[in-house]
């Protein structure tokens, strides 16, 4: 006689909360999610193939456009791979500069995450407050390299340019002002009962399961696994920096929120330390103008804002890579969405897409 049927819904690709162009096929029982199936590929631009057809200098331009929220981290990991192929090291001052810029970019990226995540859950004002602070960071980045998002700032052997006059002072000013702003976000969200209700115990994933999915970055640490590339295999001058790796205890959306907020505080500390320790000197080591690394292959990882960014390069001795592959943390993290979403309400799916902090440019490449 009477039976129930599942309702199928297409969340995206045209939808206000899909962070780019993601499509999620949802099967609902009432408002409860029975099954969710992310469909990707709407933003595919063939960055990896382009990396095999453009030379090493040109390919960096494409890395800007993969994870457009955190371009400097993408630049950095790619250039590190090229440097490893070439067998050169960055100039000491440049290494500090890279850390400063990468950490600022991490703060900016986390701010975008917080902004969109809060907006997904309905807190409008946090969105604009976060973008105000991000604007300050983007101004710093623009002041350094001339572009806000598509930075193209790092070169094999060091940095393209030194910091302009007054830049370090401005960066310090930002770091001084930032904790007060973070406190405001805490007042609006951290202890807010609606926010807690919407995030606590939503999308719980255990450390073991997170590892088996291959999740990295804040999402993994929120599940209590202490793995941060900056600590595990330090690159650049991270071994000289003192910072804390925040871990979560439950592994739910609220933990992921707390972990990322704490990471912003730690990133700020790293920036301050690096600014204080930065030596004087040239920013570029001697590197041939035409980059022609010897034949060989490398795989380099570093810690992006979303997790472990990886680059795999195979050189055949010419100025163009034989193989160029990028490991995107977002892609791996998104895999866990069906697992996280199962049994939650349809409103939670947007919170979960938000909490995974995906950038579709990075997933589809």
């Amino acid at each position, binding site marked *: 006689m009477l039976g129930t049927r599942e309702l199928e819904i297409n969340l995206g690709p045209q939808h206000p909360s899909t962070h780019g162009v993601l499509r999620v096929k949802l099967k609902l029982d009432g*408002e409860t999610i029975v099954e969710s199936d992310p469909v990707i590929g709407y933003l595919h631009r063939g960055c990896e193939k382009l990396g095999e057809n453009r030379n090493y200098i040109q390919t960096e331009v494409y890395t800007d456009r993969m994870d457009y929220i955190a371009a400097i981290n993408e630049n950095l990991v790619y250039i590190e791979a090229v440097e490893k192929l070439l067998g050169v090291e960055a100039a000491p001052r440049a290494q500090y500069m890279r850390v400063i810029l990468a950490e600022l970019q991490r703060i900016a990226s986390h701010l975008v995450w917080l902004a969109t995540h809060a907006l997904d859950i*309905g807190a409008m*004002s946090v969105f604009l407050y976060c973008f105000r602070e991000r604007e300050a960071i983007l101004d710093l980045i623009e002041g350094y390299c001339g572009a806000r998002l598509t930075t193209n700032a790092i070169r094999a052997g060091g940095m393209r340019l030194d910091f302009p006059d007054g830049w370090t002072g401005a960066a310090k000013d930002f770091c001084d002002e930032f904790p007060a702003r973070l406190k405001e976000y805490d007042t609006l969200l951290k202890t807010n009962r609606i926010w807690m209700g*919407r995030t606590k115990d939503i999308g719980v994933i255990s450390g073991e399961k997170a590892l088996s999915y291959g999740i990295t970055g804040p999402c993994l640490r929120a599940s209590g696994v202490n793995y941060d590339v900056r600590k595990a295999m330090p690159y650049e001058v991270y071994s000289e920096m003192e910072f804390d790796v925040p871990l979560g205890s439950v592994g739910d959306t609220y933990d992921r929120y707390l972990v990322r907020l704490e990471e912003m505080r730690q990133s700020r500390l790293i920036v301050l330390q690096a600014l204080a320790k930065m030596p004087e000197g040239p920013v570029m080591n001697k590197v041939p103008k035409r980059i022609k690394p010897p034949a060989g292959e490398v795989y380099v990882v570093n810690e992006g804002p979303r997790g472990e960014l990886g680059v795999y390069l195979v050189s055949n001795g010419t100025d163009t890579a034989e193989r160029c592959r990028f490991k995107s943390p977002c892609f791996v993290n998104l895999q866990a969405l069906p697992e996280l979403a199962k049994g939650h*309400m349809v409103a939670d*799916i*947007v919170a979960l897409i938000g909490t995974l902090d995906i950038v579709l440019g990075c997933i589809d490449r």
Partner: protein
Amino acid sequence: MKEQLIQYLAVPMLQIAAIIGVMLLCVMYLVLWERKLIAFMQVRMGPMRVGYHGLLQPIADVVKLLLKEDVVPKAADRWVHLISPIILMIPALACFAVIPFTGTSFEVGAFTIPLVNYDVPALTVTSWVADLNIGLLYFLAISSLGVYGLVLAGWSSNSKYSMLGSLRSAAQMISYEVPLGLSIVAILMLSGTASLVGIVEAQQEAGHWWLFWAPLGVPLLWPQFIGLFLYFVAAVAETNRAPFDLPEAETELVAGFHTEYSGMKFAFMFLAEYLNMILAALIVSVLFLGGWLPVTFGIPGLSELFGNFLPFLGGAGAAITGFFWLALKVFLVLTVYLWLRATFPRYRYDQLMSLGWKWLIPMGLAHVMVTALFMLLRG
């Protein structure tokens, strides 16, 4: 017969026309105030282009909505799709019939209509269209009809998002009508009448707003604060405003029940939503905040001073003063509405339901009991 016709047909018609006109204007500027206020709270500026600081923006918006193409989905039920914005709009407007905007009535002297040489006798025009002895119930009954508009809009669009939005809204409005009604019951008991005019007059007699009703003479024991809180929360939920704006939660359901609406039909839905907001604020002001009574009401000396600050206009001055105080109260209540929207995240559907059924309804029942108890003890 003719006099009756004027008294019972012509005057109410004019009143209705005036209320609709003024309220539509209010809605236009409420939208602008919403955009401006939320912008200020988000360190933005809001509309700045049309007119001085965007003051003509509402007019531009109306023109835009009027000229927009009316899109009806192919699989939609055309008739229901057409009438649901109207169904949404009519109850919202009909509720204004019982609202007393000011206490003193206007005296209109006898005059002659020139062309037809018709003598209109002297009239006393009140600020309300009808003073029903069941005014509050009328408000509850009529406002509960708005849900049809939402439900049918969602169903007739033949879209899954619209459908989910309308189902949510129906459940939400039905469940929050109960705490809304319960919070009103205490006021009903205090006033001893369900007429909105009677309720304000009862406050005038009591010498204070019902919000500050202090039973047993204890100065800072104001049980109606709970009533106000209950009413306000329930009204925010009834009007589908943040943080309870689930039927149109844009991050989940795109735009909820009005996803498939455009142009004039969308404008109607939009108007109805804001009319309901104004209505809820009016009811709060009348029930708890003393309606047209001045803000200083109950403070000796000041009360008389601000009761009529246009004494040279006589009765009309008092009427305008009352109108001003009511408008001020409504404006403040609406500002709180918008403030909430600028601050809070959105509840989830099940949380909203449990808040309504597990907290607000028991609280409402307890509130009625407590008020009744205090009234009994007082004798």
